[in-house]
């Protein structure tokens, strides 16, 4: 049991500042284990920034930091992200 774990939905507001479309139904592939999941099903942790982790292997798929004016995204753990166009 992880008391601090949230779902991808918890990052939806922040991600909506970056992505024009609906992002929680976008489908991501974990670069670490290859699992394919909707962003809404990905695990989210709130720390200094927001960390999205693969629900299967817990590898970091996305790190998002914002200072209110800029947003930094580390997508190295995400092999691909499929969004509706």
């Amino acid at each position, binding site marked *: 049991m*992880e*008391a*601090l*774990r949230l779902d991808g939905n918890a990052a939806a507001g922040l991600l909506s500042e970056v992505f024009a479309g609906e992002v929680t139904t976008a489908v991501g592939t974990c670069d670490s284990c290859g699992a394919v999941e909707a962003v809404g099903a990905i695990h989210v*942790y*709130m*720390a*200094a*920034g927001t*960390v999205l*982790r693969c629900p299967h292997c*817990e590898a*970091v798929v996305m*790190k998002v*930091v*914002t*200072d209110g004016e*800029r*947003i*930094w*995204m*580390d997508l190295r753990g995400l092999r691909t992200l499929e969004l509706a166009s």
Partner: protein
Amino acid sequence: MPIISRGFKGRRRDDAPRDRVPPGQYVTDDFPVLSAGPTPHTPLDQWDFTIVGEVDERRRWTWDELRALPSETITVDISCVTKWTKLDTVWEGVSVDTLLDGVETSAEYLTVFCDGGYTTNLPLADVTGGQAWIAFAYDGEPLEPEHGGPARLLVPHLYFWKSAKWVRGLRLTATDELGFWESNGYHNYGDPWKEQRYWGD
């Protein structure tokens, strides 16, 4: 201009001594828990602390060996980049000076590494001279896993993301290698008194 919400104050104390609260920070009596990932639960008999990288010889302590080293009680103010500051927190830990004693290195930087994969980078000069500890107790009790137990780095003069939870060792490096947050927007050094929160601050 944001909309001011009439009567909203937030959970802040306004009696805080100003000379102890860095700019942009608010004093809290809570100890908020922030975590970049699941809480690791490494059994103490499998836990060790190592100093690796640019060193003459790798150093390693088991949990019992680390706890047998001389430790100190430290009372410090801590500031999180998410804007809370907590005054007079009381820790017990082993000074990093004690661990580096006798280590020969030409390194000027280090990467702190942790269970769960978290890293943070610091100049070596910021963890020596009585500025940093491996803390294993908070408020007289063993450090709880949610706060980084069994042990976390305590480097209170920098924003608290540098005080890495679940610490397992230091990797001394010749060049500065950006850590988990430093590589993605957070400031490389993180001095609260200069409000070094993000890149470019």
